């Protein structure tokens, strides 16, 4: 290659281009809204876009609450991103731009607090329980956890790394039931969808997931072996909309009874 005669020049130009690229990307990284973090909530005129990271089990409820919040505060927009709590924690600790985090369990919230990524102390806002999701009409006649081990019953669970899977393991241990699931799914909605699609006969998911789906029926798990989880919510340190984030947390906490009556969460 003749270019080798001028390697220094070529490499220099390449680095110059790279450096220019890096430089320019830094300059527009900051947020354009000059709201200071310590703005008191005395000014009720909220505006801006709020980014909320929430556990998959909150998909239905938070989507509705988001619309209500936007209606109550014109000029605001609530961006919701749902996923496994553990997944969201990874995003937060890796510096994903977000304002609020709502977790399906306490341990993932503790990870965020442990990494000092929270702006305030977490607030509990709802409780949840688990249930067996089966196909409508319960064609496999599943009434107990023991029934999940019957031959010919395809069971899927959440993976042990995500809260709903951890809780399912705990429940099965409590009930002294040993079963081999066909799959360990990545989050609770994926687990539920396997039953909705008719590809699995049963799954252990949250009560709220069953209530929120028209394609599955629920089989209760006895309280004696069930897990009662408490969901915490927190504002995040890197938030560029502190006032808006606080308002959202207050809004969610204030809607405790609606979360219970409409979506199947349990009051605190």
């Amino acid at each position, binding site marked *: 290659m003749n*270019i080798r005669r001028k390697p220094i020049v070529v490499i220099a130009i*390449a680095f110059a281009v790279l450096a220019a690229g890096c430089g320019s990307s830094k300059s527009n990284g900051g947020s354009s809204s000059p709201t200071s973090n310590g703005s008191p909530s005395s000014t009720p005129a909220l505006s801006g876009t709020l980014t909320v990271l929430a556990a998959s089990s909150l998909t239905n409820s938070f989507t509705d609450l988001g619309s209500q919040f936007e209606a109550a505060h014109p000029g605001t927009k609530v961006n919701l991103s749902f996923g496994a709590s553990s997944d969201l*924690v990874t995003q937060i*600790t890796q510096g994903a731009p977000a304002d609020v985090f709502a977790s399906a369990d306490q341990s993932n919230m503790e990870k965020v607090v442990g990494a000092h990524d929270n702006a305030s102390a977490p607030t509990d806002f709802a409780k949840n329980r688990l249930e067996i999701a089966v196909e409508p009409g319960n064609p496999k006649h599943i009434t107990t956890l023991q029934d999940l081990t019957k031959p010919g019953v395809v069971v899927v669970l959440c993976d042990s790394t995500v809260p709903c899977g951890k809780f399912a393991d705990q429940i099965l241990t409590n009930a002294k039931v040993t079963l081999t699931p066909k799959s360990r799914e990545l989050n609770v909605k994926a687990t539920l969808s396997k039953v909705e699609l008719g590809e699995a006969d049963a799954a252990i998911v949250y009560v709220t997931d069953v209530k929120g789906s028209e394609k599955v029926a629920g089989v209760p798990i006895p309280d004696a072996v069930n897990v009662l989880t408490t969901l915490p919510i927190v504002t995040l340190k890197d938030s560029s909309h502190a006032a808006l984030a606080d308002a959202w947390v207050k809004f969610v906490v204030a809607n405790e009874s609606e979360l219970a009556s409409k979506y199947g969460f349990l009051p605190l």
Partner: protein
Amino acid sequence: MSRRRRRAAGGRTPAVAVVVALVGLVVFFVLPLLGLLWRAPWSDVGNVLGNEVSREALRLSLVCSLSATALSAVFGLPLAWVLARTEFRGRSIVRALAVLPLVLPPVVGGVALFYAFGRRGLVGEWLQHAFGWELPFTIWAAILAETFVAMPFFVITVEGALRSIDTRFEDAAATLGASRFTVMRRVTLPAIGPSIAAGLALTWARALGEFGATITFAGNFQGKTQTLPLAIYLAFENSDQSGIVLSLVLVAVSVLVLAVVGSRVFMTRTRVSATTT
């Protein structure tokens, strides 16, 4: 970079191309890989490679991706041939169908496979009744998902090669009395040998990295359907750094294989005898 003594064909490369190439190389390939290497917990490498989860995931990944590549070759070569060499109405629709998996979002691909081969699927229901076969959540589902996603790469590559080769050699062979099958075996396939190898390499690499359709259609069960990308994802879920080591294993395996294939096939312009089996 290996210094090649031979002058590359085609004369001088314009300096601007070299600059852009360097920038592209650094931004899209070097920096992300450096990021992984920089954060890799090197002290854990032994543990990660030694534990059963990683080993089973690697084994499954190799088995599934190689099977998917073989299936892609068996079905993809005739398909590419038909697309390149036969005129029929609706050919453009068939070609669009053949590349459809490339544009389908991964989860949609998985769900589409359910609707085809799942328990309620178009064919799946019948398979279950007739043979008692249940594809979802089995290794066959993982292989099927990977084939579905990766085969288009093979078809596109080989079809392009078949369109670009000089057909006069084939005509000559036919004139000299060779049967159609002989022409294909002795003239056409050797001519597109490098492209077949390139297509196989691309297909295999894509299958190896496949995640979305697999997790949807085959699920995730350790030792049965948990391929390396799934194991990596869950390691990150667990916020444990072994995911990085596993990612590097995946990168190393693929770079190794692709480098071997590349050095043998892409660089040498010699005619390789067709060894597609």
